């Protein structure tokens, strides 16, 4: 066992953590925006909107993210209008932006399904009560539907976020030197794949465990009404020992 090797590998991989987090953050942020749009389109009740979202979800959930990434990175540049466009070309020629676009489009499909399920799971009685109070549609959504739906969506959303953390490793196949790419490089240089990949694996695992903890904590904060009431016996003072 040489610890120096482990330490230096760990350090080199950690130095690529910011890049991984950058892909992760922007992928999730843009994904959330697209997912919100899709959920709105689906919930709005237009038949065209429903067909579009169904097709979108079918395509992006049914094929591997790697295919989507290759299609965006290598495939789209075949179009002349993409290469001549002043907006699209700077985005689509950069592997970093391509990864973010692919991840955002992919996660939006899964997230829109999560949000749709959460919206449908909001108890009808609560919406009826809000209506009975004379709340406008917007107030109803802001004060009743949205908070309940967000809390219901949280567990599935955290799973999706963890899947996204794992997906950032795919950026290494389009030449980005994030954690996986760095680990790959060290491994090729040293030919000690088991040690190097274990180091990277530990970092990924810690990252995912902390994300899971964070979400569990947020979920705990958001559901005070679901926790069991503090036990009475804890509040009653113990009988003093008089005997």
């Amino acid at each position, binding site marked *: 066992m040489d610890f120096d090797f482990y330490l230096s590998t760990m350090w080199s991989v950690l130095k690529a953590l910011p890049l991984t987090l950058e892909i992760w953050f922007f992928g999730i942020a843009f994904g959330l925006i697209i997912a919100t749009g899709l959920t709105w389109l689906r919930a709005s009740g237009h038949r065209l909107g429903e067909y579009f979202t169904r097709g979108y979800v079918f395509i992006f959930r049914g094929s591997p993210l790697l*295919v*989507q990434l290759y299609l965006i990175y*290598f495939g789209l540049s*075949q179009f002349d209008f993409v290469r001549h466009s002043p907006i699209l070309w700077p985005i689509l020629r950069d592997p970093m932006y391509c990864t973010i676009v692919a991840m955002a489009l992919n996660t939006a499909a899964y997230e829109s399904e999560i949000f749709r399920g959460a919206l449908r799971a909001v108890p009808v009685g609560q919406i009826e009560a809000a209506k009975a109070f004379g709340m406008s549609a917007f107030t109803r959504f802001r004060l009743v539907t949205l908070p309940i739906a967000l809390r219901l969506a949280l567990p599935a959303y955290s799973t999706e976020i*963890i899947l996204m953390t*794992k997906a950032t490793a795919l950026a290494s196949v389009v030449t980005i030197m994030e954690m996986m790419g760095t680990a790959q490089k060290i*491994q090729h240089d040293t030919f000690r794949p088991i040690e190097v990949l*274990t180091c990277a694996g530990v970092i990924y695992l810690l990252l995912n465990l902390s994300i899971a903890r964070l979400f569990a904590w947020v979920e705990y904060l958001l559901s005070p009404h679901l926790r069991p009431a503090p036990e009475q016996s804890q509040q009653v003072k113990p009988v003093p020992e008089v005997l």
Partner: protein
Amino acid sequence: MEFLNSLQEQLSTAYELLAAGWGVQLLWGIAWTLAVTMVSMLIGAVLGSLVAAAKLSHRGGLRFIGESYTTVFRGEPELLIIYLFYYGGTQVLTGVARSAGSIGSTDILNMPSFLGGVLAVGIISGAYQAEVFRGSFLAIHRGELEAARAYGMSAWLRFRLVIMPQVLRLAVPGLGNVWQLTIKDSALISVTGVAELMLTANKAARSTHHSLLFYTLAGILYLVMTSISTPIFDKAERYTSRSFLRPK
């Protein structure tokens, strides 16, 4: 009109490329993808049931092992695990072969790419299958297990007659999800050089410079594979739960 002409041109190039041999290659790619997925699912089923049993065990040590397995293999990027098995396997094999003297001290004994890929994807699939099996075991009525015990059935008999048939029935929908996941994970083992659909599409795209065509085709073929499996699993679910259907 110009658009139609260019579309026709595109289609005829696509046809020429596919007829020139890439079509057959892609079909082979599908066959390999299905082979990889099936073998991985089988490896995953064996590992998954063992891990599920460990997670349900009364012994703390076994439970810990089961928990760690599912946490680690569901928390790591799939790509990392595939690299670990492929390159790590090469490292181990080379080390063993060098010390046994069967290859020279500078030679390298490569991990067979199919074996490495299938093991990695199978182990990942096993982590997800373990959760499915555990969930379906917990859904069995406690009373039935107690009744079997009261009849004096041995542990094996209980497993064979009471637990297994019900776990299999309850696990079908969950296994359908894992199957789809495994198809998509199988695309990642193209990095090790197994000539499955993704790698074939990659080769075709690079050598013909028609990446849009071939990656779109690959995407469509994956969609076909995942969407064909949905009705098959629905049918399996109806078949296995036929005695539980509600009368119409």
